[in-house]
């Protein structure tokens, strides 16, 4: 019989936890976003909103944004699918290597790729000039699609890899025994089963693409999208309501897609949880199919390697495209003065934000899965907003909200947290952005893990007299420690590489690496930019490695969850 859980009366700890969660979500995301909406309906903002209907130029920006999102979504999903399919259905040497290369773009700062692509293929680029001797059109739409699809395809890859692995081979075998050819099986069985996953991946990439700010600034050229337009409105034209209005317009497709994607991923779960595979996966052995798939996969991998080597090698060349002698000058530069500070500040702030984000994400997951019946969906939705909202919109919201003290009835509730003259040089607002951007990763993995743990384990603790807080600390948290630490890892990587929200609230007192890289890339000092990027990647990898080490250490105790579940 279906027993509805979570109908017991809530204890004090849980009530308190829900209160704190709602408070944090309000301050960190709801108020800033509300502010953006409010500002966009001020005079100036209204003009922009009106121009959407009347002005061809503004409409073109919207079309550009949607078209860019669609292209990146389609191409990135296709690439991710190809790599996942090859990984699961083809036998070849170097599988592990291809897997690592397929995930590599996850840890790069968003514009490392853009910069590298410019140096390789841009105006008098190494390859475009040196080999082809012509001026390719890398700036604008094509370049953006190339760079964004390369940066974000790992998201689709991870999604689809999981789904492909959990497809029950018995389904394929059934189709085969009914006389279907391999290609027909692919078309009529495999693909339809993956549609929810493919749809979800497409939408995720769509949102990432339209929200991206750094790449349109560096490589966008004349191809203006909403995110870059909002940035220019605020930092170039000082048209605050205008920037807010562009953000609001950007918010609409992002939210819409987020909602569709949630609906879709719920359906995708049905396919993902099919239990243990019951047969042997039918590998692709036909030579021409196998080798053309492998050729495509390795070509993509080679491109990733090429771009990465460009970033790393570029940081050691004296003057790119002019003098290729090796030097440490770039590093000497970035470690002198502001670069030094930025490395320290960024790492420190990310390290502060990471455990907060991880803990907050887990807390949300626990309350959503275990404690509340109604409102869980809503809480989950608002928790995930930090990831779903375009960083540009978030950053603008923070600038609006926290650049002055928040007062209610003349009493200061919060001091000025962001911008010049803020307490701690605006560091508080940056940590807040890091937390709200990265806690969704912990929330998501926490929910997935908790759902696999028998709720009776929590109930057993309660029936032995343990309070809600004790149960969370002694039972739930230790059981999802693996998810917790993985969540931390992604939180840290995400914090270190995030740019679009930061750019609006960073101050000279708190230099942030990503915004420094953008400045260097913007002023065509690629060597410095590459040195920063390399350093950033190194820090991320080292910290991720350390967290990984901790995970293994703490999980080696031999106590694993028993997988007996209530019938």
């Amino acid at each position, binding site marked *: *019989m279906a*027993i*509805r*859980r979570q*109908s*017991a*009366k*809530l*204890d004090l700890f849980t009530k308190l936890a829900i209160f704190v969660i709602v408070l944090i979500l309000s301050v960190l995301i709801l108020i800033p976003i509300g502010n953006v909406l409010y500002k966009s309906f001020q005079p100036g903002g209204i003009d922009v909103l009106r121009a959407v209907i009347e002005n061809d130029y503004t409409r073109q920006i919207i079309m550009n944004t949607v078209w860019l999102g669609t292209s990146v979504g389609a191409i990135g999903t296709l690439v991710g699918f190809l790599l996942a399919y090859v990984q699961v259905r083809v036998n070849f040497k170097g599988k592990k290597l291809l897997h690592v290369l397929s995930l590599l773009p996850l840890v790069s700062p968003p514009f490392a790729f853009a910069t590298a692509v410019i140096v390789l293929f841009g105006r008098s680029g190494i390859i475009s000039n040196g080999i082809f001797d012509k001026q390719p059109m890398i700036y604008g739409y094509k370049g953006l699609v190339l760079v964004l699809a390369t940066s974000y395809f790992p998201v689709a890859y991870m999604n689809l890899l999981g789904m492909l692995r959990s497809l029950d081979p018995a389904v394929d075998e059934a189709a085969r025994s009914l006389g279907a050819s391999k290609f027909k099986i692919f078309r009529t069985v495999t693909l339809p089963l993956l549609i929810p996953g493919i749809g979800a991946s497409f939408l995720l990439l769509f949102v990432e693409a339209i929200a991206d700010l750094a790449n349109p600034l560096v490589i966008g050229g004349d191809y203006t999208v909403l995110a870059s337009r909002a940035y220019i409105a605020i930092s170039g034209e000082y048209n605050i309501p205008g920037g807010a209005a562009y953000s609001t317009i950007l918010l609409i497709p992002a939210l819409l897609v987020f909602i569709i994607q949630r609906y879709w991923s719920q359906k995708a779960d049905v396919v993902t949880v099919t239990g243990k595979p019951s047969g042997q996966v039918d590998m692709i052995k036909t030579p021409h199919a196998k080798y053309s798939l492998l050729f495509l996969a390795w070509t993509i991998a080679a491109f990733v390697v090429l771009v990465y080597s460009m970033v790393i090698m570029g940081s050691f060349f004296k003057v790119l495209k002019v003098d290729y002698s090796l030097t440490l000058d770039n590093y000497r530069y970035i470690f002198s003065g502001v670069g030094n500070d930025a490395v320290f500040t960024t790492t420190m702030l990310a390290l502060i934000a990471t455990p907060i984000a991880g803990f907050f994400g887990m807390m949300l997951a626990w309350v959503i899965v275990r404690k509340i019946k109604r409102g869980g969906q809503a809480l989950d939705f608002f928790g995930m907003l930090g990831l779903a909202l375009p960083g540009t919109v978030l950053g603008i919201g923070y600038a609006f909200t926290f650049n002055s003290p928040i007062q209610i009835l003349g009493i200061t509730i919060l001091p000025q947290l962001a911008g010049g003259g803020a307490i701690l040089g605006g560091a508080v607002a940056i940590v807040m952005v890091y937390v709200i951007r990265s806690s969704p990763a912990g929330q998501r993995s926490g929910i997935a893990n908790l759902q696999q743990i*028998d709720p*009776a*384990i929590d*109930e*057993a*603790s*309660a*029936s*032995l*007299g*343990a*309070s*809600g807080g*004790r149960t969370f600390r*002694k*039972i739930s948290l*230790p*059981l999802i420690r693996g998810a917790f630490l993985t969540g931390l890892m992604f939180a840290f990587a995400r914090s270190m590489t995030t740019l679009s929200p930061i750019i609006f609230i960073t101050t000279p007192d708190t230099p942030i690496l990503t915004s420094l890289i953008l400045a260097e890339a913007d002023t065509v000092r690629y060597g410095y930019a590459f040195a920063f990027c390399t350093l950033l990647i190194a820090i991320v990898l080292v910290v991720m490695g350390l967290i990984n080490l901790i995970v293994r250490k703490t999980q080696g*105790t*031999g*106590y*694993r*969850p*028993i997988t*007996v*579940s*209530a*019938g």
Partner: protein
Amino acid sequence: MARDTGNLKLTNVTKVFGNGDDKVTAVDKFNLTIKPGEFVTLLGPSGCGKTTTLRMIAGFETPTEGDIALDGKSMKNLTPDKRPMGMVFQSYALFPHMSVFENVAYGLRVQRLSKSEIQTRVADVLAKISLSHLAQRAPNQLSGGQQQRVALARAMVVEPKVLLFDEPLSNLDAKLRAQMRVEIREIQQSLGITSVFVTHDQDEAMSLSDRIVVMRNAVVEQTGTPDEIYRKPNSVFVADFIGRSNFFKVDKIKSKSSGKAKIEVNGKRMEVPAHPKATSTSNPVLLVRPESISVKAAKPTKALGTVTNIVFYGNHVEYSIATKHGEITAIESDPVYDEIVQPGKGATFEFDSSRSWLIPSDGTVVHEE
């Protein structure tokens, strides 16, 4: 050794899930008083509301209406951790990241007992369930039966006033289940803790309980001792759910007095014990348990039916006989092989009328399991 605390009283307990058009009543006006030290089983098919009732007692569900009181004190507004009850779960719900010792000690640590006292009490209870040698093992290194015992020990060690069991034996194999039944009963008796046990297994209910509550579609169908439930069921449903049963059509009701009726079945007059409501309904049926029926070979003219199948078990033989009442099952113990009536042959049967029971029929068609 019955204790004087642990008096559990459920008054009009009702649970409605959902709202609007989606309403499902899981438990409807459940009333029961359990004496200190009594072992009560909630028995019924899945979906009858027995588990929901147990979870309301534990505090994991809040009753929509009604009250649950322990020793006269309402439990209604207490969260599960504030109720002096221990629960044994169907999935055992052992903490996978703690050793057996730590699992059992958990409730004592919550009570902030001294280290030495925890040590002694855990050691005592582990000895009682003969698992002392496995104290440092992780739960997933134990067999199902051992995990089950740890779960029991963990619930017992805090000396709750009430022990709650949610189908704790359903994940064990048949042999182990029988063994654990005996163990649970022994431990419960020696501690004298009031116990509520949920199961859909009638053997478990019969062998463990002081009293059985049979539930069906959210309501209590009958409450009684195992003997009452078996010998004097309130309805065809209870009779059919507990043990195996034959229902004979009654030809005539001659007379009725309190608790007795003179009736005619298969052309034979007999006086049978009767349910008070049985004689007032239009067509009561006579319940006869298979083991009460003895079978004899008969000529076709005298036969009451034809044997359709026999199953020989050595210590007993089971007959299926096609009759005008439908298929009748008879069990004869210690049979002489050569005297068994073979399939296709005509047979008569008789039974001791005092071992039968006249019950009201609600008109539902009755099937063997």
